[in-house]
């Protein structure tokens, strides 16, 4: 359908162009008539086209109608066919269902019969069960009775067996005992006989012993006499030998005495010699010590002489006017002061160098930043130039289009003076003019932006040149840093000195605070404070303090109990109506009035003693009234 529409549009355009070309050919005809003819023709053409379109549409609709009828018939045929198939299937299913129904009816009849039989059987089963239960009960009773009877029978049998065994055991024991009796009697007879024999033997032996003892005594006496005689003989022989040796022994004794005297003299001489040797050794040691001391003293003396000479020549070596230690100390102080001044100069120079280096790094950073910015600006400028070129191209194209459209419109205007197409053309002309104005304004904006970017570029270039000049000047300054002393450096140095002094004061203050805090911490540590995160305090559970507290608590409780007991006694006595002059009442009143404590206990004890003494209750030796 769309292609057909396009073809109709193209045909109308062709007719329009042909109309326009015909209009040019028919320039000779009066303008009013030719226009009417042309109008009629155009109207005819339009009608023809409309008719053709309507006819075409009718044909298409007829075609579609026929197509639809065919499809309708086909669908109807298929539907009838499907319906017949379904009817056949339905009849088949109906037959099956009837068969199934018959089967179901038969099964239901059978089920009813089976239910009846089942109920009858259930009843018979119940009756049988009841009979069985009764019979089982009877059987159980009989079993129980049988079991009891069997148990009694078995117990009786066991008893009988035991009794029989006991009887047998007793018979056996009786027979064994009778046998033993017989044996014992036989033994006894034997023993009697033996005793008699032994008695006779003993008598004979005693007689023989007495005889033997007499003989033994005699033998001992004879032996003693013999031993004595032998001893006498030995003594005689030894005395004889010793008597022969006496003169030799006397000579030997003399000789030994002489030797002894000689050796004692020698030992005395040896001791004296040793003492002399020790004395000489000590003298030698002392001499060696004195020699060493002398050598040391001489060395010291030489060193001192050298030192003295060095001191004396100090003036010549150093070129200073030093004659006394005070002069030397003065020179040393001066040197130290010079050293301090030089150190200060060195410090200032170092600080200046550091400042210059810091400025250099800052300038380098700024230079790199500016270079990056110039690069970015260059890129921007290039993109904007490309945009400008594109815009210029577009402007050219638009101007060409405008010229073309103008030519067309002029031609339309020249040919069509007052027609119905003029408002459309004027509208289109206005739109084209508006487009042109927009493009011109956009072009002007782009040109303005371009000029701005160019100005920025120039400024950046100037800044860059200035930065480069500054960098060169800083480099020159760095080269001659030691010689130049600008006002800015002096100011910086003064500022830095002030900062240093302030920092020093703060440091001292902080140090004092730190010392105070450390003292406090030490005090807390001495008092026993601790960090519970890192430390825990432990003690023995049964320590003397807890034990003493427990004992004290027990004593206090005992005293309290005693006090309550005494108070009760007092109350009972008061209830019984004793006289107020009774010393026991006096005691109880006293105990009631006083507070419970050790003092109370002591007072109560004193009063008790008094009462006991007065009433003669105590039996420890106190005087009785």
């Amino acid at each position, binding site marked *: 359908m769309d292609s057909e529409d396009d073809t109709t549009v193209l045909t109308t355009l062709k007719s329009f162009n042909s109309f326009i070309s015909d209009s040019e050919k028919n320039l000779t005809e009066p303008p009013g008539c030719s226009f009417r003819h042309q109008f009629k023709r155009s109207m005819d053409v339009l009608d023809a086209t409309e008719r053709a379109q309507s006819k075409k549409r009718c044909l298409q609709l007829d075609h579609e109608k026929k197509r639809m009828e065919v499809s309708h018939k086909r669908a109807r045929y298929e539907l009838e066919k499907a319906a017949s198939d379904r009817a056949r299937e339905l009849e088949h299913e109906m037959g099956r269902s009837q068969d199934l129904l018959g089967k179901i009816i038969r099964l239901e009849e059978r089920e009813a019969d089976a239910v009846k039989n089942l109920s009858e059987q259930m009843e018979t089963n119940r009756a049988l069960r009841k009979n069985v239960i009764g019979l089982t009960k009877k059987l159980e009773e009989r079993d129980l009775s049988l079991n009891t009877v069997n148990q009694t029978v078995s117990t009786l049998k066991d008893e009988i067996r035991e009794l029989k065994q006991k009887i047998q055991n007793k018979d056996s024991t009786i027979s064994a005992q009778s046998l033993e009796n017989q044996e014992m009697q036989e033994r006894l007879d034997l023993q009697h006989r033996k005793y008699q024999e032994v008695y006779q033997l003993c008598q004979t032996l005693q007689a023989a012993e007495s005889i033997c003892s007499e003989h033994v005594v005699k033998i001992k006496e004879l032996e003693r006499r013999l031993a004595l005689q032998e001893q006498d003989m030995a003594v005689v022989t030894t005395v004889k030998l010793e008597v022969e040796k006496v003169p030799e022994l006397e000579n030997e004794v003399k000789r030994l005495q002489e030797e002894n005297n000689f050796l004692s003299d020698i030992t005395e001489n040896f001791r004296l010699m040793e003492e002399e040797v020790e004395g000489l050794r000590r003298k030698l040691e002392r001499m060696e010590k004195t020699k060493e001391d002398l050598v040391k003293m001489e060395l010291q003396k030489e060193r001192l002489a050298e030192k003295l000479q060095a001191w004396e020549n100090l003036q010549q070596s150093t070129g200073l006017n030093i004659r006394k230690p005070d002069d030397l100390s003065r020179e040393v102080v001066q040197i130290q002061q010079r050293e301090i001044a030089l150190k200060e100069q060195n410090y200032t120079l170092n600080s200046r160098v550091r400042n210059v280096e810091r400025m250099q790094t800052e300038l380098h950073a700024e230079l790199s930043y500016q270079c990056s910015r110039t690069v970015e600006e260059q890129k921007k400028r290039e993109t904007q130039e490309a945009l400008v070129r594109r815009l210029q191209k577009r402007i050219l194209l638009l101007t060409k289009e405008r010229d073309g459209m103008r030519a067309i419109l002029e031609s339309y205007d020249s040919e069509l003076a007052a027609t119905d197409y003029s408002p459309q053309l004027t509208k289109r002309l206005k739109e084209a003019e508006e487009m042109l104005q927009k493009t011109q304004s956009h072009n002007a904006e782009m040109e303005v932006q371009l000029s701005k970017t160019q100005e920025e570029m120039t400024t950046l270039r100037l800044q860059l040149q200035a930065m480069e000049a500054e960098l060169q000047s800083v480099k020159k300054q760095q080269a001659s840093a030691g010689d130049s002393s600008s006002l800015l450096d002096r100011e910086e140095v003064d500022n830095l000195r002030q900062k240093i002094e302030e920092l020093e004061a703060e440091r001292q203050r902080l140090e004092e605070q730190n010392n105070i805090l450390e003292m406090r911490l030490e005090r807390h540590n001495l008092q*026993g404070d*601790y960090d519970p995160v890192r430390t*825990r305090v*432990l003690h*023995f559970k049964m320590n003397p303090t807890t034990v003493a*507290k427990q004992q004290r608590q027990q004593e206090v409780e005992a005293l309290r109990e005693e006090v309550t007991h005494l108070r009760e006694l007092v109350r009972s006595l008061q209830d019984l109506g004793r006289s107020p002059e009774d010393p026991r009442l006096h005691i109880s009143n006293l105990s009631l009035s006083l507070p419970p404590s050790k003092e109370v206990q002591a007072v109560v004890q004193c009063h008790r003693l008094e009462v006991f003494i007065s009433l003669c209750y105590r039996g420890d030796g106190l005087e009785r009234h």
Partner: protein
Amino acid sequence: MTSTMKTITLKGSAELVAEFFSFGINSILFQRGIYPPETFSIISHYDMSLQFTTDPKLKNYLTNVVSQLKEWLFECTVQKLVLVITGLETNEVLERWQFDIECDKSAKESSTPREKSIKTIQDEIRSVLRQVTATVTFLPLLDTPCAFDLLVYTDKDQIVPEKWEESGPQMIDQSEEVRLRSFTTTIHKVNSSVAYKRNNSA
């Protein structure tokens, strides 16, 4: 342990320090009159005469505490030992004898003995004990019944034995502190001090 040895190990150092605590505690209890003087007998140690208790319960208690302390000294987990004297009537802490213990934990890792003679250590201990005796002259009198307790400051992760429990520091309200001498075995250093309740009448 013979006094002629010139090196000391961790175990020996722990034994020396535990021994010092045993004698020091007995000396303080005698000097401050916590227990009657007739319950003490004279023993010679560190080349001086020292008082040692004969009370069986007190002996048992001190033996238990000192033996556990020795173990902790060997493990280098003990930081302080404090002898606290409390008045029984007022339950106020009257005196605190504090022994700060600094342990060189590198001795635990290396088993090489340190060079310090036991005689030198015993001389230092003797001077500390003499100073303890002399300190008693300026301490206020304890004229009320008192009892004592031993507190041990240990590391937080120390396992609490069965017969021990956690306690508070039992500090003195308004106290005066006096630092005493110290001694060192090169492995354990013991700093002594005493804190007593300020006498408001002075």
